């Protein structure tokens, strides 16, 4: 046990056992899958048409926004290049779906349906449409356990988007709150400030939204202010999430195997195509 806790030596053992008990997870999950499938099949035509129209509008909006973002990102990379600093670009993204199983109720863990077979790895950041959800805690062949950022033993390096002030957001076991324990009383934080991941420890990609400051209490008698933030990701609602892996631009080909290179090439091709079409 202490080996597992301190040294992570038992990782392969755990992974193997998890793989053997995976059928149980799968079996428990099946009714919910079936229910979702049935709901999809039996949805009324008008509802589908409506949803389709809504998604189309959304897509248009997103496209418009992306055009600008694309240009901004390129400019950003160029500027960072001028400064000589490494810039992380997003690499492979893996879409994973939540499995409907309950784990230890006293910790914030989720199980998702992608494992080593699909390329998930321990330590990958997990995001949803609104922000960072957590990181991959352990993987087996066909499922992975995700630790949410609100887990009591989790901490994530963040910075205030407004002024770049760095801090660490610690989970406290409450799905709606993160603590920033080590900000001095005179730190420049305000309610409503956006916290983004700072990418410092190298585990989380830089620049993703994490939380929004909800409360700043400055106590004159204490060394640190009490700062609370609300996670932006829908930790208890998202069914689909993305597992992200990043690499640094300066050594693009390091630790990539052929498969991933192919994937990258494909992505590149697709992007080129899209650009041409846009023209």
């Amino acid at each position, binding site marked *: 046990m202490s080996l597992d806790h301190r040294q992570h030596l038992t990782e392969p053992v755990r992974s193997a*056992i998890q793989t053997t008990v995976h059928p149980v*997870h799968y079996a428990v999950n099946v009714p919910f899958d079936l229910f979702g499938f049935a709901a999809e099949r039996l949805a009324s035509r008008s509802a589908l048409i409506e949803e389709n129209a809504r998604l189309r509008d959304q897509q248009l909006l997103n496209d418009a926004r992306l055009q600008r973002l694309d240009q901004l990102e390129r400019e950003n990379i160029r500027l960072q290049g001028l400064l000589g600093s490494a810039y992380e670009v997003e690499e492979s993204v893996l879409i994973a779906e939540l499995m409907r199983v309950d784990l230890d109720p006293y910790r914030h863990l989720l199980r998702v349906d992608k494992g080593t077979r699909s390329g998930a790895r321990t330590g990958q950041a997990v995001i949803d449409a609104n922000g960072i959800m957590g990181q991959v805690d352990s993987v087996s062949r066909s499922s992975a356990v995700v630790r949410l950022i609100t887990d009591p033993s989790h901490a994530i390096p963040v910075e205030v988007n407004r002024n770049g002030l760095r801090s660490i957001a610690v989970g406290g076991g409450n799905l709606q709150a993160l603590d920033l324990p080590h900000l001095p009383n005179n730190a420049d934080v305000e309610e409503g400030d956006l916290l983004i991941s700072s990418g410092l420890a190298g585990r989380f990609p830089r620049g993703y939204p994490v939380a929004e400051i909800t409360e700043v209490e400055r106590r004159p008698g204490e060394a640190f202010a009490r700062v609370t933030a609300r996670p932006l990701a829908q930790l208890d609602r998202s069914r689909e999430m993305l597992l992200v892996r990043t690499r640094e631009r300066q050594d693009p080909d390091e630790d990539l195997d052929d498969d991933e290179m192919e994937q990258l090439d494909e992505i590149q091709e697709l992007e080129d195509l899209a650009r041409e079409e846009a023209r």
Partner: protein
Amino acid sequence: MALAARQGGGVIFVSIIVAYALTIMPLPDWAQPARPAWAALVLIYWCMAVPHRVGVVFAWLVGLGQDALQATLLGQHALAYALMAYLVLHLHQRIRVYPLPQQAGIVLLLLLLVHVVQAWISGLADRPTPGLAYWLPPLVGTLLWPWVFVVMRGVRRRFSVQ
């Protein structure tokens, strides 16, 4: 006799799988903290009914499986279940002849032991101490014991597990 002694291994296995499934079955939020330790209940029954088949090692393996299932510290459930199985093996001849309510009392003690061991391990691993609701599962498990016992006895007789 040698043949009869090995009957029904599959039934024990399936019962553990069912207990596992119940352990991770999604429940509404209010019911989640009260979810009883199904695998522990089933293990207690088998240890009591067929102590020559189900022992400490089996309990340890079941616990290991549950650790992987619930993503707890590897060995946390395993240690607790092995301890519990050891006690049941010691007491099985007495527990078997108790009336159901008294059996339930013993089960409460066993489940509490499992929970205390887990709380200790969580404490050693620097996890925050759980609240009062943490102690609900043993109570719920105790209330469920008579039904578990009757159902499991039915299963054992139906498939003549010996």
